[in-house]
């Protein structure tokens, strides 16, 4: 147990900070995923064939390719791409992209694909009469979306978004391969320097279980709060 004490002798404080880092990356990734979903959901539902294909390509490719691949591509490819862009503007130095940003972006792209599917399902399950009624009332297309469809869509997608959140939270463990110090990376370091991998990976497992358990409780509360009226 003294291995987990706070201060110089134990790994408690390091693991605590790492847990905060995991939460931060997950929230950032979820937010980025939301942005992606808000862009790609209309494309997926669009009646135009070309826009439709773009939306479908995004979700199919991201959901069919390992998460690790997206992370590696951004991590190794991102630096090269950034340096190439910088060289056009006349800067030839070495650019290192922050591991947090790459990680959050990579996981965000992945969680965005899942959120897109969730939003699409939610919009499709909204009663057709709502669209027709607002059309009859002469409400403009974008006001219809923001004031009528979006609120209902968000409410309907809370249960499925909680699944996406769980997937995102667990996917952040993969960022450890790029060196960002979150739970997984910190336990790897701790396990390496104390030669007690069994203990530290068990601690990591417990931390993840705690995070999933607590977030489930929180989301359940939200779900009850926003399912009023049904």
């Amino acid at each position, binding site marked *: 147990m003294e291995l987990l004490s706070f201060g110089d002798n134990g790994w408690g404080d390091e693991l605590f900070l790492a847990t905060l880092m995991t939460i931060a990356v997950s929230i950032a990734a979820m937010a980025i995923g939301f942005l992606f979903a808000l862009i790609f959901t209309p494309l997926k539902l669009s009646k135009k064939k070309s826009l439709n294909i773009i939306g479908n390509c995004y979700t*199919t*490719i991201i*959901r*069919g*390719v*390992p*998460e*690790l*691949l997206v992370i*590696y*591509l951004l991590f*190794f*490819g991102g630096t*090269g791409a950034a340096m190439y862009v910088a060289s056009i503007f006349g800067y030839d130095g070495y650019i290192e992209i922050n591991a947090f940003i790459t990680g959050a972006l990579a996981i965000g792209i992945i969680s965005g694909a899942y959120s897109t599917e969730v939003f699409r399902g939610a919009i499709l399950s909204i009663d057709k009469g709502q669209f027709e009624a607002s059309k009859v009332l002469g409400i403009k297309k974008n006001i219809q979306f923001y004031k009528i469809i979006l609120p209902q869509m968000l409410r309907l997608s809370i249960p499925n978004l909680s699944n996406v959140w*769980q997937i995102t939270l*667990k*996917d952040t*463990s*993969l960022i*450890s*391969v790029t060196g960002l110090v979150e739970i*997984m990376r910190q*336990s*790897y370091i701790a*396990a390496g320097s104390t030669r*007690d*991998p*069994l*203990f530290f*990976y*068990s601690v*990591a*497992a417990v931390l*993840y*279980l705690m995070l*999933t*358990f607590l977030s489930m409780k929180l989301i359940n509360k939200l779900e009850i709060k926003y399912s009023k009226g049904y």
Partner: protein
Amino acid sequence: MISIFPNLLSGAVITLQLLVSSMFFGLIIGLIFAILRINKNPIINKFAYGYSYFFRGTPLLVQLYLIYYGLANIELLRNSFFWAIIKEPYWCAIIAFSLNTGAYTSEILRSAFQTIKKGYIEAAQSLGVTKKITFYRIQLPIAIKQSLPAYGNEIILMLKGTSLASVITIMDLMGEARKVNVLTFKPFEAFITAGIIYLFITFIIHNIIKYLEKKYGFQT
């Protein structure tokens, strides 16, 4: 791009091997735990629930590290016959993947068991069919048919999961792509080619499941 293709394909073979063997063991584990989950005894029930909660609530990477690095810490295991298995990263990966997919499969099958209409079982009972035969001839086939779509998703998730094997030194598709990246400094070529192969495998699995669903799908 063409020159790296043979390397990646040899990796893809390992990926498929990992996938098939872990799906096989995972199905057995999942079936056992699904049966335990619908058991009425609270201790057995809780145990099966705990198993699936742990493996679904923690990242696959943690489970893989726990088995690959963690189990070697236990003196008892190191001196036993199991050491021959646990010291190989390949078998560690298969154990971790099987336990993980087993947990998800048990949930899929459990929900399938619970959605079987009571009328089927009652009908079997009133016809004097024994409990054992009801289970093997009526409940099990219906549950398997009902869970086909969800199980197809699980296979694809597991295919993506096998890429983690590259982290513990196995040269699967992902591992080969990483090697190509390190040797040639061409991340885009390496990872995009690997991505295309992964997509191709996903596509094939997806279509096989679709075909099976059409052929054996169960409408209630």
